[in-house]
C-alpha cells in the first residue's frame, strides 16, 4: 500500500467518523463543555464575589483547565472517537465488504489509527483554543502563561488524548463491540486506573499505568489525588510505558482484525 492509497483510506475513515453525529456530538461536549462550564462558573463567581474569587483567567486557571482537558475529559472524548474508529466497520456490517476489495486486513486496521487521531486532535485543538481564550480574556491583572508553557500544554494535551485514542482503537478492534469497549475503557479510565494509582502498596507496579506515565509529561503541576500523577517515574520509564501500551493494544487489534471471520 503506497502513500496515496493510505491517504485515501485514512480520508475515508475520517469521513466515517465525521458523519457519525452522535459520537461526534458527545465527544465535542466532553472536550469543550467542561472548559466552557469552568470559565462560566469562574466568571460568575468572580463577578458576584470579587473579594473571595479572583479573575477567571490567568496562569493558575490555565493550569487547572489544562488538567481538566488533558487528564480527564479530553481522554474521554478521545476514547469515544477511538472506539468508533475501531468498531465502526464491523458494527455497520461493512467490514466484510472492505475485505472483499482484496485490500489487506492489516491495512484496513492501520488506517483507523491516523483517522481517529486526526479527528481527536482537531477536537482537542479546539478545546485548547477555548482554554487559551478564557485564560487571556479573563486574566485581568493576573499573570498569563508564556509561549513555552502554551506550546508544552498543547503538546501534553495531544499526547494524553492521542495515547488514549490509540489504545481505544486497538482495544475496540479487539473486542469488536462498541458498548463493551466504551464501558470497559471508561471504567478503566475513571475508576480502575485512579484507584490502582492511589494504592501505595502496589509500589513501583503503578509505573505501568498509562495515566501515570502520561502525567509525567505534564507541563503544569499534577498533585496528589484526583487524576493526577501519584507515582514518580523517570522519563525513560514513562516513554517505555507509553510505547508498551500503544504497541500491545495495536498488536491485539491488528491480530483480531486479521484473523476474525468477516
Amino acid at each position, binding site marked *: *500500500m*503506497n502513500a*496515496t*492509497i493510505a491517504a*485515501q*483510506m485514512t*480520508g*475515508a475513515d475520517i*469521513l*466515517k467518523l465525521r*458523519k*457519525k*453525529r452522535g459520537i461526534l456530538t458527545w465527544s465535542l461536549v466532553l472536550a469543550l463543555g467542561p472548559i466552557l462550564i469552568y470559565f462560566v462558573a469562574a466568571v460568575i463567581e468572580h463577578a458576584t464575589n470579587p473579594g473571595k474569587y479572583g479573575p477567571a483567567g490567568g496562569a493558575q486557571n490555565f493550569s487547572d483547565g489544562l488538567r481538566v482537558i488533558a487528564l480527564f475529559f479530553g481522554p474521554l472524548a478521545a476514547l469515544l472517537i477511538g472506539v468508533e474508529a475501531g468498531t*465502526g466497520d464491523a458494527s*455497520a*456490517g*461493512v467490514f*466484510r*465488504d*472492505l*475485505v*472483499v*476489495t*482484496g*485490500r*489487506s486486513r492489516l491495512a*484496513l486496521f492501520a488506517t483507523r489509527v491516523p483517522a481517529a487521531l486526526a479527528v481527536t486532535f482537531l477536537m482537542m485543538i479546539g478545546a485548547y483554543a477555548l482554554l487559551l481564550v478564557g485564560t487571556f480574556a479573563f486574566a485581568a491583572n493576573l499573570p498569563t502563561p508564556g509561549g513555552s508553557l502554551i506550546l508544552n500544554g498543547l503538546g501534553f494535551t495531544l499526547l494524553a488524548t492521542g495515547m488514549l485514542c490509540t489504545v481505544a482503537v486497538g482495544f475496540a478492534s479487539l473486542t469488536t463491540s462498541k458498548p463493551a469497549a466504551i464501558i470497559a475503557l471508561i471504567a478503566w479510565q475513571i475508576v480502575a486506573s485512579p484507584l490502582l494509582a492511589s494504592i501505595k502498596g502496589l509500589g513501583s507496579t503503578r509505573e505501568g499505568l498509562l495515566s501515570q506515565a502520561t502525567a509525567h509529561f505534564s507541563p503544569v503541576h499534577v498533585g496528589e489525588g484526583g487524576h493526577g500523577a501519584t507515582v514518580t517515574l523517570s522519563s525513560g520509564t514513562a516513554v517505555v510505558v507509553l510505547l508498551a501500551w500503544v504497541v500491545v493494544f495495536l498488536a491485539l487489534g491488528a491480530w483480531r482484525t486479521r484473523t476474525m*471471520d*468477516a
Partner: protein
Amino acid sequence: MSPPDNSLPTPNVDATATAIQTTGLTKRFGERAAIDSVDLQVPRASAFGFLGPNGAGKTTMIRMLLGLTHSSAGSMSVLGHPVPSERALALARVGAIVEEPRFHPQLTGRENLRIIAAARGPETHDRIAPALRRVGLSERADEKVKKYSLGMRQRLGVARCLLADPLLLILDEPTNGLDPGGIQEFREMIRDMVEQEGRTIFISSHLLDEVEKICDHAAIVDRGKILMQGAISELAEGGARHELIVSVDDPVRALEVLEISAQVAQAQRSDEGLRVTFSDLADISAAEQAASVNAALVAAGLAVSRLEPVRQSLEKRFLEVTSRLSDSTIEEVTA
C-alpha cells in the same frame, strides 16, 4: 521502470480458466460439515446459479471463496488465482454482495461508494458515477443510506460491486427486497453483463424460478453437498423422460396409434391435448422422438395441429433431488 503501486494488484487474467473452481472444499463447524467436499466449476462468461434451500451452505461457500472465513480442507481458485494464498489478486476484479448489503447508514450512497473506492485504488473513484447511473440511483445518491429502502440498498450493493469493474460478481440472494419491476430490471442487467460484457455472475438463491430465468448453469446444493451441476436445461431434464403435448383431430384414434408405438411409454388425455411420455431411450433425442410420433400419426391419417415438447422445470428437478437426498438420509438412519 515499474509502474507505481497505486492500486490493488492487477490480475493476470487467464481467460481460459474457470471463474471459480473448488476441489474437495470443506468447512466444518465442530463436527458439523457446513460444506462437505465440494467440487465446483463455474464457467466464464455465464450466469451460474448456486441453488439450495435455506441452510444448505450457500453463504458459507461464498464466504470461503471471498476469504471471509477459512476452509477446513480442500482447495479453491477464483479467476485462476488460488485463494487464500493469492486472495488480493483473485479479488481485484471481483464484486460481491454477501447476505444483505450493509452500509454505513450515516453516509450517503455516494459516500459509501467512496469508502470502498478508497480501498480499491484511485482509478476506482471514476467508476462511482457510472455505477450509480447503471443501477438507477444517480438522483438519490446524495441521500443518507438510512433513508433507502431495501431495494435501493440492493441496487447500491450492485453499484458497489461494479466499482471493481468485475470479471466475476458473486451475489448472495440478490433479489431479496426488490419489487417485481426491480426484479425484472435486475434480470435484464445480469443478462446484459453476461451477454454484452462477458462477465461471470455467481448467484446464490433458494428461488428456483429466479435462477431458471437468469442463469445458464447451476449447481444444486443441499446440506453442504453438491447434488448436481451443469447447464440449466440439462439439470431440468436430467434423466427425466421426454414429454410431448399433441393436438389432433381424433384423439381416440391417436391414442390407439400411440399405444402401439415402441417409443411411447405412456399416452393419455389432458386439458392441453394428448400428453405423450416417451420411453427412456438414451440414444434418441427429444426432437427425433417427436418427429417419429408425428410421422406415425400422419401415416394413420390424423391431422396434427400441435406438437410441443413439455419443458421440464428446474423446480420439479430440484424437489426430486432434494427429496431423494432426504430419502437416502432416512434410509441411512433407519439402517
